């Protein structure tokens, strides 16, 4: 059995409907999550009940599913997806089905964000909200304020006015709470030229309290295992960028801030990094790129900046911005930013 909720419909409603099919009683105290695109519930290959929601959202949706009748018949066609899921043993005797989803806060909430450098206004009136697990493409010409926005969200710059919430933390007051939960891949690799790739990653692993054993896995994941013991000054810019990507995700951050992440990368390296920093990573992402079509293809939402001001913010049109849709952001609107 598979239940799919309509776009925009609450996950909670989708699962309540599924629960009814299971002949279960639903705990009416269950919290309802914010809307996501779809949710599923079904039987896995090991006769286990599986409840999961769209990639990325599952992380924030601790579900409890208990069925009244363990032997309830379910069609065994449910696909066990690769991404994170919640598995509940259906054979444990339970007499209650309760589906609880913690109310999910947006990963990023900006309201009238303003940031200045001296007298010069770098960002003004930026208002956008990004759900956990989604990708926001930040577009704009050089000097539009894209990097400043990323640095504010990383806690590296203070906002001068407006409201900034990142991963549920108010910035700059609670900046310390997002340290270690954000992965930042910017123009600088944030790696030391005199150290080798392995030494650099081990250094960052220790700062983040990550086990050293993860370093070798990350080096292999970015295709740098063979040259991990060469100092960075002897490596090409593309190789350093691969190591910088490994550094950015080494501590498994909930939020990725990516500033031209594929700069200096050849197509093969770009594909290699896809599971780490691409959509497949399942992480909430903010993506700054001058490749308008590419960024829109990857994004759920788009934010356009022009001279530090917000030109637009909204849902990306289907098919990477190529299909027209009322009120949605398309490639044409994005290209206007550069004129």
């Amino acid at each position: 059995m598979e239940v799919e909720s309509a776009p925009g419909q609450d996950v909670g409603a989708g699962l309540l409907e599924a629960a009814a099919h299971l002949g279960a009683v639903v705990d009416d105290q269950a919290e309802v999550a914010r809307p996501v695109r779809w949710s599923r519930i079904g039987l896995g290959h090991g006769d286990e009940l599986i409840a999961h929601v769209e990639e990325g959202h599952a992380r924030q949706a601790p579900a409890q599913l208990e069925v009244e009748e363990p032997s309830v018949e379910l069609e065994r066609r449910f696909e066990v997806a690769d991404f994170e899921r919640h598995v509940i043993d259906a054979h444990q005797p339970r007499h209650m089905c309760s589906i609880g989803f913690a109310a999910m806060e947006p990963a990023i909430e900006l309201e009238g964000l303003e940031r200045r450098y001296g007298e010069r206004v770098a960002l003004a009136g930026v208002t956008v909200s990004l759900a956990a697990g989604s990708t926001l493409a930040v577009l704009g010409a050089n000097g539009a304020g894209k990097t400043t926005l990323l640095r504010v969200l990383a806690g590296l710059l203070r906002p001068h006015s407006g409201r900034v919430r990142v991963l549920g933390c108010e910035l700059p007051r609670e900046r310390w709470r997002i340290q270690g939960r954000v992965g930042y891949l910017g123009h600088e690799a944030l790696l030391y030229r005199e150290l080798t790739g392995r030494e650099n990653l081990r250094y960052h692993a220790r700062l983040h309290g990550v086990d050293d054993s993860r370093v070798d896995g990350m080096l292999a994941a970015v295709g740098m295992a063979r040259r991990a013991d060469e100092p960075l000054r002897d490596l090409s810019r593309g190789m350093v960028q691969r190591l910088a990507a490994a550094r950015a995700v080494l501590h498994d951050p909930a939020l990725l801030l990516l500033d031209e992440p594929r700069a200096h990368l050849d197509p093969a390296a770009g594909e290699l990094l896809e599971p780490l920093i691409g959509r497949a990573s399942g992480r909430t992402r903010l993506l700054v790129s001058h490749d308008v079509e590419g960024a829109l293809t990857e994004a759920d939402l788009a934010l356009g900046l022009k001279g530090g001001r917000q030109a637009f913010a909204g849902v990306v049109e289907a098919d990477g911005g190529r299909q027209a849709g009322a009120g949605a952001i398309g490639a044409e609107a994005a290209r206007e930013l550069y004129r």
Partner: protein
Amino acid sequence: MIAAARAILRKDLLIELRTKESVPAMTLFALTVYVLFHFGLDRDSLDGELAAGVLWVTLLLAAVIGVSRLFAAEREQGGIEGLLLAPVDRTALFVAKAVGLFAMLVVVEVVAVPTFGLLLLGPGLGGALPELLAVFLLGNLGIAAVGALVAALAAETRARELIVPILLLPLLVPVLISCAQATEPLFRQEQGPEDLARWLGLLSLYDVVFVLLSVAVFDYLLED
């Protein structure tokens, strides 16, 4: 905090070992100044106040070079941002930088002080070695604490080459006075009444005050 401080210190020492930028420059500077004093004063040997003053002023000026370079890798390669993104108490950064500077000063002194003894000092160094070690230990601690603080303060400024000596040297005047006064009796031709304990006490007090002050304000120095 200790694990992070160790990681930062280890990284700094590795970079220094590979680049050989700070310690050789500091050492060479100190040796050059001693040679200049040797010829400039046109004396074969110094003792007492003059010897103590020459020794410590030279070491303090050499320390300025180390302090100026203390955050060089962070500044030039984005290391500060990497640290600010990590769940690391900034005190760990202060501790690592201060310990690193302390270690650099020790290496410089291991070469520079015997050279000073050979080139300029009348009385031998050997007789007062334990007392000298105590003075150097406390003096280096004060220089390291203040040096790490000033280096962080100057790290994000454009005129850091000017800011470091302008801030550091006045702040180190009490260290200079205490170290020179504590060393002076040890460099006399004829041993007289010593006030070593008083000056070591003053140095200790200075060290405690500046370590505590640095820990208290270090968090705010790296703020945007």
